[in-house]
């Protein structure tokens, strides 16, 4: 395993997993179990190298599991990785595509942009983050895209917020929009594209346990019907998604997650970890 720190708390891992690498496609994810007592967490693929037999992913250290994962050193091992999971993205020549990525999801977006370009699309890329220090893969995406824009929540770089998207969409016709990032950001993008009737694909990040259709915790409402994000998604038609429901379900275990994170940081739970 190799490890790179891309930005504060954003880490890129490249791990040996030849069987997973052989089958990976853009839009899919893996389930990671860091050690015996960990949670299983889903992470989107940010890359794969079939020759080297590796897959790579970028994660944000937000809670106990991801912080622990971040502590793994070069050459370390993850207890178990399962994948590739979920349906691959639909990649074909749509024409003119708008890609909007936020935060840690800029990494998997890069994979999508590459594939969309290869399929012959014209691609406009927008990346955003809370502050400028958290922007990743700026140069790579700029080089790959026909047009490229940056936005931050605080305006420390590029546009402030995503409202400028409206202007872009007024100037130019898009055949498809693809967005991956924090749920609130995807929701905003959908609110902008919906009146213009631009087909918009979102990558949903519901809570998951198994990631293969066995528990139902990842259920979401899309177009009034229940779907399991892990096997029916993770990509859905953004204009049909019940975002409020998703946001509510993502917060279900907030108190426990905080407790777990705080205890871990205090180092006080004495549970005999390695």
């Amino acid at each position: 395993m190799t490890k790179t720190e891309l930005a504060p708390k954003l880490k890129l891992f490249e791990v040996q997993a030849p069987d997973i690498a052989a089958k990976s496609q853009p839009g899919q994810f893996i389930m990671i179990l860091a050690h015996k007592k960990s949670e299983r967490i889903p992470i989107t693929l940010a890359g794969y190298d079939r020759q080297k037999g590796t897959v790579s992913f970028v994660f944000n250290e937000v809670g106990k599991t991801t912080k622990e994962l971040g502590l793994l050193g070069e050459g370390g091992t993850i207890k178990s990785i399962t994948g590739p999971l979920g349906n691959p993205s639909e990649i074909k020549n749509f024409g003119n595509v708008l890609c909007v990525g936020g935060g840690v999801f800029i990494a998997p977006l890069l994979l999508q942009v590459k594939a969309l370009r290869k399929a012959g699309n014209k691609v406009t890329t927008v990346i955003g983050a809370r502050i400028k220090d958290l922007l990743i893969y700026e140069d790579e995406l700029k080089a790959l895209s026909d047009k490229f824009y940056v936005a931050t929540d605080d305006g420390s770089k590029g546009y402030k917020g995503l409202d400028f998207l409206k202007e872009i969409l007024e100037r130019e016709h898009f055949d498809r929009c693809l967005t991956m990032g924090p749920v609130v950001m995807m929701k905003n993008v959908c609110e902008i594209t919906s009146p213009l009737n631009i087909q918009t694909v979102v990558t949903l990040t519901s809570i998951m346990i198994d990631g293969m259709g066995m528990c139902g915790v990842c259920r979401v409402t899309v177009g009034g019907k229940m779907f399991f994000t892990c096997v029916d998604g993770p990509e859905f038609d953004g204009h049909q998604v019940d975002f409020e429901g998703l946001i509510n379900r993502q917060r279900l275990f907030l108190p426990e997650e905080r407790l777990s994170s705080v205890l871990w940081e205090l180092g006080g739970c004495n549970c005999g970890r390695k």
Partner: protein
Amino acid sequence: MAENKPKPKVKKNEVQMPKQDPKVRGKNFDEVALGYTKEQVLEEANRCLQCVKPKCIPGCPVEIDIPAFVKLLREEKYAEAAAELKTKNALPAVCGRVCPQEEQCQKECIVGKIGDPVSVGRLERYLADWERERGFVISNKAPSTGKKIAVIGAGPAGLTVAAELAKLGHGVVIFESLHLPGGVLMYGIPEFRLPKSIVQAEVDYIKKLGVELREGYLIGRTHTIPELLNNDFDAVFIGTGAGLPKFMGIPGEELGGVYSASEFLIRVNLMKAYAFPEYDTPIRIGKHVVVIGGGNVAMDSARSALRLGAEEVCIVYRRSRDELPARAEEVENAEEEGIICKFLASPKRFIGGEKGWVKAMECICMELGPPDASGRRRPIPIKGSEFTMDTDTVIIAVGRTANPIIQRTTKGLEATKWGTIVTDENGKTSIDGVYAGGDIVTGEATVISAMGAGKKAARAIHKYLMKKK
């Protein structure tokens, strides 16, 4: 050792199994049934009449020679008795605990005509535990055939196929999608009914037979069946189980605090949420837990919820007590522990409160009409009988259907409209060299029937491979 000789007169009553006190066990995840002592096991074994035409054997889906192992047991030849079991059943410690014996081997036992049937399952459990505590002896294996079989799913069906084929000298690789083997034994049936260390030990025994286990491989995604057949393997067995949870399609199922039984049990068993925060996966249990359903899964969920600290656990079932599909013994255990059953009621919707968390459930009362296709009397809603009950945790245990990933990704594999895989009586599917068995073929059934199917399929696969050359 005169007392071990068969007694001329049989005692009518079975030797009771020692159990943890209900008040104590309702607060821990330790095993409820404690197992016989040596004296108790011999006394129970002596109740067997050693029938010439035993009625018990046909009741066992893997056809264990029950009088034979019981005879060895009462001669105190424990190792031989355990070996006799192992010739037919690779997972005796599991079956001795969770088989619905009252419907199987014990149903037709001749002693049952005058009193309680011989407690075959408890004898089996004793021997399996005796053997495990002393370390397994690996039986002789046939010489290698050079053939290789891929087994998909490490549940009871897959493990049985793997053990049988390995003993016949074939190379076997099990692909399991989760990070631990065992299937429902690991992620579904709770620790207090089937300790996970026992499952682990029985799986280790199968590994010692030379079976290779690859965890974290979701077949259909990581590899497909055609890829397995084209690359390394001469045959494939599908034992992927019925892991897809059913919901009811009523309003409010998306609320917080509404779990599918699968989610709830996976959190508690596989991820050990009962030991949060030592283990990282959380679970939240409220004060008033409602479990919907009446099968083993509902009982297991209710009893787990109680152990996680619920003040009150209520099972809501749409038929009456007589139709409860759960094992009688488990219903009795649940009631002893203080679990309440509300019969003839069915939920209509869940009502949300603060922060999108469930706070109540609206139900409707039912009455029983004529029998339906399942042979049980059909529940019919009584108009205007709606009532609400307060609840902060709902566990939906209304059944599970076939795992769909393989069917969706394997061209030419015939499936029914319920998603189960179609096979002949030996487990052969519509694709040459591909076999299937267990819950993925029958829909939700039992551990031992999955093992029985695995056994048949193993025989058929062996024939197929030896003919193929």
